């Protein structure tokens, strides 16, 4: 296995490795209970349904929700975002988003804007702090504004955004607030009540340490089911006589057999994450990032983007090295040093435009829960050798 020798620093894309309990839970579920949930009523089906709901409940509590039925299983965060945008928005709506967004937010909204379905405002962030100013969002609100959709943390520079402040502004103006928790769920605190979040989209495969193919959309009680349309219709296991999708959470938004094996893994991953205390994991990642930032400041050929401190950020930083394109440096780190990083635009072209790193992008380094100081030092040693 090549992967065993790799120093993996691409956790912002997908966390790796996973706690062994994840594979164990998936394997056990496959071997014992992997029937179609609900539908049939036999004991295996009931066990599968119960597992789905147990994990629903645990994750709902984890994000401060109060109704497990409003936790919708999705295939990833992109899926959750599409379900939210296409389910909530109506012709003529105005949407406010930011230039920090990943394409999973930017592209669906851009497509809706291009087709004349919605109007769209992108609020810029400060390249030096990596932060959105909530006042800029407040000022962008107009009479037709229906939704404010922002990322909780930049996937390029890692800065954690003032979600609560933005949520409060949204609530005060009667505007819905969607938070993209891709980079934060599992490390930074998210509370849908406290942060005024109406819709929370998140992946299972990043800091929640779950398998790929899992994710969720939490629809807070502030969004009535009648305000939504189903992004996809299909079998729900119950209410089969109805020609329409049953207007009942989670089934309204969950047509088709869910990824039960993946959710079994996500359940085990979530338990692991909670036991190891997200705040401690975040502090660990921040310490690694600070170690990296301090050392990079000493290497003349390196230019770091965003703030120079690890405070108020997830374990993600971006930089470039003189004389090498990000792709070249990424290639060298992989080929000559077996270090996995992510060069390029990180699916966030607007962020790179604001940072001045468009179109080539940057090299992104994102340590995760299982990285160590030795991993950071190995990267630094490699960078010193390349820039020597």
């Amino acid at each position, binding site marked *: 296995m*090549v992967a065993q020798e790799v120093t993996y620093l691409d956790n912002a894309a997908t966390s790796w490795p996973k706690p062994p309990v994840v594979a164990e839970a998936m394997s056990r579920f496959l071997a014992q209970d992997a029937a179609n949930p609900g539908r049939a009523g036999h004991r295996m089906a009931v066990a599968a349904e119960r597992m789905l709901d147990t994990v629903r409940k645990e994750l709902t509590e984890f994000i401060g929700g109060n109704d497990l039925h409003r936790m919708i299983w999705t295939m990833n965060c992109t899926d959750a975002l599409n379900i939210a945008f296409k389910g909530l928005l109506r012709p003529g709506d105005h949407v406010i988003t930011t230039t920090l967004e990943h394409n999973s937010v930017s592209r669906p909204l851009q497509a809706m804007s291009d087709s004349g379905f919605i109007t769209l405002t992108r609020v810029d962030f400060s390249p030096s702090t990596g932060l959105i100013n909530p006042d800029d969002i407040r000022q962008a609100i107009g009479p037709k504004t229906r939704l404010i959709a922002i990322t909780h943390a930049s996937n390029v520079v890692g800065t954690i955004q003032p979600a609560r402040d933005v949520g409060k502004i949204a609530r005060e103006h009667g505007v819905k607030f969607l938070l993209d928790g891709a980079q934060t769920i599992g490390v930074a605190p998210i509370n849908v009540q406290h942060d005024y979040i109406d819709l929370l989209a998140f992946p299972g495969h990043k800091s929640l340490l779950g398998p790929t193919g899992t994710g969720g959309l939490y629809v807070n009680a502030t969004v009535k089911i009648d305000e939504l349309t189903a992004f996809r219709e299909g079998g729900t296991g119950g209410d089969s006589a109805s020609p329409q999708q049953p207007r009942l959470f989670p089934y309204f938004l969950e047509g088709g057999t869910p990824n039960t094996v993946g959710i079994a893994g996500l359940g085990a991953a979530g338990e692991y994450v909670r036991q190891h205390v997200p705040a401690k994991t975040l502090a660990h990642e921040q310490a690694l990032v600070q170690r990296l930032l301090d050392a990079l400041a000493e290497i003349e050929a390196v230019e770091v983007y965003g703030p120079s401190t690890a405070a108020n950020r997830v374990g993600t930083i971006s930089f470039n090295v003189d004389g090498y*394109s*990000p*792709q*070249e440096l990424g*290639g*060298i780190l992989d*080929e*000559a040093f077996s270090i996995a990083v*992510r*060069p*390029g*635009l*990180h*699916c966030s072209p607007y962020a790179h435009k604001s940072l001045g790193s468009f*179109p*080539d*992008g940057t090299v992104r380094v994102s340590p995760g829960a299982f990285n160590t100081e030795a991993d950071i030092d190995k990267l630094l040693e490699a960078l010193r050798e*390349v820039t020597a």
Partner: protein
Amino acid sequence: MALSDIAEQLEKSDPSLARYNRQMLWEPIGIAGQKKLKASRVLMVGCGALGTVLANTLARAGVGHLTIIDRDFIEINNLQRQVLFDQQDIADQLPKAVAAKKKIAQINSDVQVEAVVADVNHTNILNYAGGCDLLLDGTDNFETRFLINDVSIKLNIPWVYGACISAMGLAMVIRPGITPCLRCVFETVPPPGMNPTCDTAGVLGPTVNIVASWQAMEALKLLTGNINAVSRYLFSFDCWDNRYQQLNVAKARDIADCPACKHHNYEYLSGKFASSTTTLCGRNAVQISQPAGSKINFEQIAVGLKAVGSPSFNKFMLKCTINEGQGERQRQHELTLFADGRAIIKGTNDASVARAIYSKYVGA
């Protein structure tokens, strides 16, 4: 049989074959062989130097159906050896496969030509090879040859290998289950950059014509059912130093524990050994990755690349800017090569363009 006899017989059966009377005069082909040619389908993989000679020869000989696959457009430096193309094709910015079809229609409109502008690889080759009587190698890289080899064995279709550089050539007929296959003889793809390519070491027109004419002759034997006349040797020559050899490779089939023809383990057709391309996040660049374990020598490759650019390298990577095409189609590509054979080709988002550059300037 005399010309008059041929004319008389064709009058009753197929007058359209009359144009081939010089070929039918050759007894082993005759009218029966000519009819077999008309009924046959041939897949030509690649339509560059070897491919144009092959297509030209087989179309004139009356092969009924040719499928010609090539991913490239014609460039002025191709005309020195690629016999089906001319300056007007370049002005018209035609892909090679399309220009070949157009030219063959002028030469012999009885030949059905299917022109496919595509990168042939493990995901699509079976779509083109099924139902063919023969596969012909007009490629410039070993990876595609091993892919053709897998298809040949899997579908039990013979193929004719051909390769050339400078004044040297190699060619061989592979008949599944009868002769050794290409992997019995060459086991694996040579590491990237180990061998010079026509674009770094040059190639002479006559070399191409000798190899492709040899391939075409074997193709005629195979397609007309003259199996006993088919070469069982690896033909090898250097026509600058005047050395011509026929290597007896028959034993290779017994010696080699060949994954392809002995174990029917099609490692290239399955994609397991295929190089992969990724369009990189960022600007206009494609990354080509080689199967694990490749190692290349920057110094050696830099020597070759001096023919087309100014390569520079350090211990981590080699860079070279390569200009291709003319006029409106002129493009600049930046090749960055890493020690494990992977490459980043800037200036394109098209995987087939990147693969073509890799084959031409690095070689695999």
